[in-house]
């Protein structure tokens, strides 16, 4: 198996993804990512020069009216109190989170 991903990269990607990995988890992740990336490398056998990437399949079979935008009109959304009720911490009007910037 070739080593496509390094320990440093696993740590950088974990940081991007806001995941806190233990050293043990990092080790497993390194192994699994390399195995999976090795496997997906077979896509390189295919010449895809000039092929337009397909991000969404709806373009392949659109029905009449598909893709039309709805009227840009105001409509009621969920009630604030109902939504805030599900939050871990609020002040009644806003979501509360821990300190964003530490004062030196």
């Amino acid at each position, binding site marked *: 198996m070739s080593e496509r991903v390094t320990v440093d990269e696993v740590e950088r990607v974990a940081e991007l993804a*806001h995941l806190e990995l233990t050293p043990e988890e990092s080790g497993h992740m390194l192994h699994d990512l390399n195995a999976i990336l090795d496997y997906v490398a077979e896509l390189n056998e*295919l010449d895809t020069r000039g092929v337009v990437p397909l991000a969404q399949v709806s373009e392949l*079979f659109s029905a009449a009216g598909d893709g039309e935008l709805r009227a840009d009109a105001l409509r009621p959304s969920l009630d604030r109190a109902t939504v805030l009720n599900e939050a871990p911490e609020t002040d009644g009007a806003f979501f509360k989170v*821990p300190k964003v910037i530490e004062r030196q």
Partner: protein
Amino acid sequence: MTDETYVQKPKTLAELRAEIAAGTTSAADLAASYYDRIAALNPRLNVYLSLTKERALAQAERVDALAAKGDPLPPLAGIPVGIKDVLVMRGAPATAGSKILEGYRPPYDATVVEKLEAAGAVLLGKLNCDEFAMGSSNENSAYGPVRNPVDIERVPGGSSGGSAAAVAANLAVATLGTDTGGSIRQPASFCGVVGVLPTYGRVSRYGLIAFASSLDRVGPFAGNVRDAATLLAVIAGSDPKDATSSKAPVADYAAESDRPVEGLRIGVPAEYFGKGLDPEVRAAVEKGIKALKAAGCSVKPVNLPLTKYAIPVYYLVATAEASANLARFDGVRYGHRSAASGNLNAMYSNSRDEGFGAEVKRRIMLGTYALSAGYYDAYYLKAQQVRRLLAEEFLRAFADVDAVVTPTAPTAAFKLGEKTGDPLAMYLADIYTVTASLAGICGVTVPCGATAAGLPVGMQILAAHLNEGTAFRVARAVEAAQIQE
């Protein structure tokens, strides 16, 4: 070894409707009998994560009042239905099989939930599944695996394992699941029930906790093809709350399924019958193809040579989209927040670390890597290019045939724990289902036989975009041949 104590075929919609209309049973009694069966079997099978009794009984009373007046009954009047726990019901738990959503009570209903209730369905509760629908065995649920009612030492398949097992064990007459790479079709095959992959955009996803948005679909499970078709007609259609839903008119799929298959052209792709296919699965599917010939279909080979690239494409596209969709679980607005966090970034990371399971983290990592600077073109863009080639290959095949038939999965249900140590081996359980997911086409899986050990085998019937009626017709013919045996 099969276990007859758990498997029970639900009555058909037609039978139950007739009983409710005639007053020989009531929707309330029916719901109560299902809750009794759930109380008896759920501790062993782990199919339901939570029950919505109050809401179900109120709905049953409404249906019974209609029946008492002699009013015409809606298509699912009084029918007990279970909902996969990635779809939201107002005020009921919605865990998506994850610890990170423990305690969450969504303040709204999914569109499919509204549609089922408007059609008279009685929604019994929320069904177990792999965490965020990521898995092929249901072993990734944070709330423990579902057991396969056919053999409780085996997995029910995944990710909609609870949805498939509920129908197989008659813990619901029908259920809803979701399918991103095979999550309806593979468990339906493993549990011996009918499962439907509707065309991308055919069914609204408003109220679905998203996994991979260019792939996710909502579809029904039922004990027979005609009932699955009836369910799909109820939940299909455009929805102003889901911009990806199609405005194409909804057909009467049950009536379509009644039409004979004589003259239909069936394609058989050699790529789905090669190395890795269990011989007993092959034999059952080949018998199903013979039955289609006997019913007057013409059968011819079709070529789908890009099939072997489908798993790599799928795992790049799906994980990239998942890494974006799952960014919303951050401990701010709902769900789990880590108690021990002095600043915002630590709160994000600790909450996600405590809340997500190993497979979810693995996929977020792979997706984040594939989207990160320097790798985007090599992985994500490349996968999207091959995705177009795969879709075009299907479109070419459907110029020559009305449906393509394949095994739904390479094996029958495997044992619990058999593949948990090897993520790649687990991903290969989806080898025959991910292609239709990537192409956006529709399909139905229908039981077509069993292994010598009595494990069910499913046949996958694929049809072109918005051509669900054809898939149901072919599935009915396979089902009819089974019943005649």
